[in-house]
């Protein structure tokens, strides 16, 4: 088992005819992901290295049975593409695009919640989802990860690679790695993904990698205390970040007295979640728990 993407994933890539879209769609296919379609308005009928391109998500779903979308189009078009995928009945939408305006994200989130409650959006501004040995949707460099029992959920891409690699060096693999993205309005929260890992029989331990900004980590701490029986190891990046500065991710900002790293670490630890102070410590703690 794993979460979100696996051997049943039938992927449709929005923006497949773009340079980055083609590169990563083909990368995902080489990994074994079933890439069944692409969508680029005006390029319907063409193909990208054998993958048929459609003008609309609706026709792509009808013709190929696509059940998962990867959104790779530039920010001005990304919200529209996510809404189109949901409208076509796609169940899992993974949005890689960085730089989508926050008010667009707000409209998308609330519309999906009201009109498409069964649709799950991962991202935007995320590296995607990798279920080692099964499927890779997004830009996660799969070669650093192997199959295993650690579920990882993170707001950051490269930090996830760092932690995953440290686990791999200690001999541990992953059930799934889920990047929820660094934007102010992620489609899925830590809670959503931790709930999936809790239900996933293959996942024995959950690593959650958070960062400054917002209160998703504090909310996750409450959820973990009440609903999660599996061990969770935490990490929070941005302890040294000054208030009022956006640290690369649009969502990574300490505003006034809210969103600071210390409060997040305290919230998690007060609910019994062990928090590593460095990525290396996170891996050490995870290994210690798994070997117990």
């Amino acid at each position, binding site marked *: 088992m794993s979460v979100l993407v696996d051997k049943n994933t039938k992927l449709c890539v929005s923006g497949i005819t773009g340079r980055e879209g083609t590169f990563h769609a083909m990368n995902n296919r080489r990994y074994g992901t079933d890439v069944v379609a692409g969508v680029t308005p005006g390029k319907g009928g063409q193909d990208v290295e054998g993958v048929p391109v459609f003008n609309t998500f609706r026709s792509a779903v009808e013709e190929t049975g696509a059940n998962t979308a990867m959104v790779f189009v530039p920010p001005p078009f990304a919200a529209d593409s996510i809404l189109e995928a949901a409208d076509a009945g796609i169940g899992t939408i993974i949005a890689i695009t960085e730089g989508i305006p926050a008010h667009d994200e707000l409209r998308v989130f609330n519309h999906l919640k009201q009109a498409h409650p069964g649709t799950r959006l991962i991202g935007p501004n995320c590296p995607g989802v990798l279920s080692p040995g099964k499927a890779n949707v997004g830009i996660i460099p799969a070669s650093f990860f192997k199959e295993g029992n650690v579920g990882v959920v993170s707001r950051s891409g*490269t930090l996830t690679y760092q932690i995953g690699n440290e686990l791999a060096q200690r001999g541990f693999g992953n059930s799934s790695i889920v990047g929820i993205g660094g934007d102010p309005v992620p489609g899925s929260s830590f809670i959503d993904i931790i709930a999936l890992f809790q239900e996933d029989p293959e996942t024995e331990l959950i690593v959650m990698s958070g960062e400054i900004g917002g209160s998703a980590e504090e909310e996750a701490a409450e959820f973990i205390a009440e609903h999660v029986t599996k061990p969770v190891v935490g990490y929070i990046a941005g302890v040294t970040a000054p208030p009022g500065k956006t640290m690369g991710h649009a969502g990574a900002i300490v505003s006034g007295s809210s969103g600071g790293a210390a409060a997040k670490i305290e919230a998690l630890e007060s609910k019994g979640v062990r928090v590593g102070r460095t990525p290396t410590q996170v891996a050490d703690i995870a290994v210690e728990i798994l070997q117990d």
Partner: protein
Amino acid sequence: MDLLEYQGKQLFARHGVPVPSGEPATTVDEAVAAAERIGFPCVVKAQVLIGGRGKAGGIKIAKDAAEARQHAEAILGMDIRGHTVHEVWMEEASDIAEEYYASIVFDRSAKAPLVLLSKEGGMDIEEVAERDPGAIARLHVDPLLGFQAFHGRRLAYEANLPADVIRPVGALLQKLYEAFVAEEAMLVEVNPLVKLTDGSVKALDAKVTLDGNALYRHKENEALRNVGAEDPQERMARERDLTYVKLDGDIGILGNGAGLVMSTLDVVAHYGGKPANFLDAGGGSKAEAITSAVEVILANPNVKAVLFNIFGGITRCDEVANGLVEAFNQIKPSVPFVVRLDGTNDKEGRRILQEAALPNVHAATTMDEAAQKVVELAR
């Protein structure tokens, strides 16, 4: 992106939020001429992106042209908590009867705009919230529905505002919400929102933060960027499309990916070092971007050592290595570098660095080792 008070007021005015009239000025003569057009008494207000202007002497009332000159001379060029005043806003004086507070924040947790209104204005709202949370009326607005007239009335009544301002404040909040949505703000704050002695209401201050990701469709707002107030290295980085935040330490940091860079700062601090900057070279950085980034980092004279922490995904370590070699060819840095390359094409990257035999460049294999090494070298 944060706006100056007067830029925020001009933005409000475009959406019908009532504000006092005024003019910006960058020189003393301009300020005096503006004051004469506005009439006396006239308020001289320092325009800086930091609070506490009044206490610092950055807001003064002038009763005639001589006083306007005197105040403008004192305020222009003044330092307010590290921010130099390059501009003043000359504004008509307001006869204030009462001071309230209003704001709209982008509530990430609720995934909806949150409107706040309080009868207690003119002071720090976080203090009010702590002392008397009941004094602040709160309302989440469904972004798909938008702000309705009854929302304004409900807030005004719940904030216990006097009967005569219920409607005007409600109307002002509706226009403020229009501005928040139309300009794609992350925050609009009016503190104080005043009732004048003639019974009208106005936004006497304006704090506006716009979404940087939405500026591409608001060219008029992009032009409001306060270049003069920007740190020189931060401006240099922005012009080169690099994500850079200046910090007050002495260890220059470059990494790829915001989370990894934040984590690198923390790990350096964990081992006793002080980062001089945050620099995310981004995913898929090419050699030229790396060379450019080194220039930005070294433009900060405080930097005594530099740490490269790369975990290549889309970013290729050979590109990073080539960029560093090119940077050494061009600028011959005088400070030591510690370089940790892991991930995509890491072996090739390390080979390039070894063959180039750059002076004072130290390789490290793990993030922790790299951090410890650079902290030692910066001592």
